[in-house]
């Protein structure tokens, strides 16, 4: 054993690999009679029993941010507003929680555009501030979704109940749209979201059940915002954590797409990237930007649910 250690040391073997080699050698000495492949398989199985997320490869730089979204709770003011809204014939207003969804897979994504030079405001001709550009982005969600396949989604203040229509339009178009209800005309199955957190550099949309639209097809939270990068540029992004609300719809989507049940949503958020990038780089607007490669993780909820909800540490995913 000492000779093996010395040999591995002499060959500058990685300490972790070295420890594993020694473990294997000890197993042989103990008479386990396993080949190296069998020993590796055994150790992986042992590790998976302790930590089901052991083999997952999830972006460590994003996991904490996805955790924040997964653990987001709507504020009391928003909850009070929702509780006092008039119910429809078939549906009432109710926020759909991530943990209450039935989808087998949880989606964690991040679609961003890196802007090195902010564009000019087409209305004033002056250069946008980052806050100003996000505000412009918020007020123009529908044009930014154009081009998604198979059809674009439209984002409008919730007007399906006439008595609250003008209030919702005014709230969404105000400078503090916390609690605003937005109706998304999603091809195939419309949905409603509510703004449950609002700051100058980001806002959250949480999906909800609402009259006329019914359940939103997915349950979870999506963040729209920007972050300052170390080089001084800005990443304008859409980041979400969600699951299919219905197990059956999720499985049907998986069966139809064969691999990626969130491919339609990917198309929508990719359209945001393309349109923001095109807007910024338009010579008339004078900005410069590039599309950041999207980060997309789709894993069974039971593998990462506890980690996202903070019941297990992110070190279980190999993250620090």
């Amino acid at each position: 054993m000492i000779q093996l250690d010395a040999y591995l040391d002499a060959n500058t073997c990685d300490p972790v690999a070295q420890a594993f080699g020694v473990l294997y050698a000890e197993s042989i000495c103990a008479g386990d009679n396993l080949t190296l492949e069998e020993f590796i398989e055994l150790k992986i199985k042992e590790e998976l029993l302790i930590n089901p997320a052991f083999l997952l490869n999830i972006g460590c730089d994003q996991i904490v941010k996805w955790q924040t979204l997964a653990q987001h709770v709507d504020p009391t003011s928003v909850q009070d507003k929702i509780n006092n809204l008039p119910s429809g014939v078939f549906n009432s207003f109710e926020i759909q929680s991530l943990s209450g969804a039935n989808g087998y897979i949880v989606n964690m994504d991040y679609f961003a555009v890196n802007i090195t030079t902010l564009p000019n405001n087409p209305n004033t001709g002056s250069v946008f501030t980052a806050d100003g550009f996000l505000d412009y982005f918020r007020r123009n969600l529908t044009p930014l979704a154009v081009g998604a396949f198979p059809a674009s989604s439209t984002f409008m203040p919730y007007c399906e109940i006439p008595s609250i229509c003008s209030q919702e339009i005014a709230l969404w178009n105000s400078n503090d749209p916390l609690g605003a209800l937005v109706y998304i005309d999603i091809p195939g199955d419309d949905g409603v979201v509510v703004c449950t957190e609002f700051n100058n550099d980001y806002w959250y949309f949480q999906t909800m059940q609402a009259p006329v639209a019914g359940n939103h097809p997915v349950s979870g939270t999506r963040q729209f915002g920007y972050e300052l990068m170390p080089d001084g540029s800005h990443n304008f992004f859409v980041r979400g954590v969600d699951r299919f609300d219905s197990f059956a719809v999720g499985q049907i989507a998986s069966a139809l797409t064969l691999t990626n049940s969130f491919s339609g949503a990917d198309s929508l958020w990719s359209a945001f990237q393309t349109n923001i990038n095109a807007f910024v780089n338009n010579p008339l607007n004078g900005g410069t930007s590039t599309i950041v490669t999207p980060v997309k993780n789709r894993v069974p909820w039971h593998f990462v649910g506890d980690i996202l909800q903070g019941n297990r540490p992110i070190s279980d995913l190999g993250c620090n």
Partner: protein
Amino acid sequence: MRTIDVKKINIVASISLVVSLIVMAMAHSKPFTWRFDSWIGRSLDLLTVLFFIPVSIVTAIWLLIQFNKKYTTYKKINIIFYIFLLVNSIITFVPAKYKIGVYSPSILGCIYLVTFFLIIPMFFRLFYLDYKNDTKGNLITRSVIFILAIITYVVVSWIL
């Protein structure tokens, strides 16, 4: 008194049904709402609701009655089985992105699912009827076509 030419009516009804279905399929996902915001869109909405939907309902009922009159139960199931199998096999080749909206199945995806789930019980029902009536030729032909369709599905799924 003039006699009604059923064959001609059937042809007209079939064409009307197909055209109506195409027109309705082209409308936006929200029932009967077109993509246009202007008067063109509103006119198309009205045309869809007041003309194409009634036309498709009437022609579908007419064709079903004719179909029911013309064939025995066995033949009806057999024809529907082959139509569904053909439609399902064609849609199998269509790329996945056309079969799904953002989260839910598109119209094409719905047709795919419905035909998929109807083909299987129909196959076994026909299998049983052929076995009972000792029409082994039909049984073998249908089984071979069905297995070929399954192989096609598996291969296409694997490639896509």
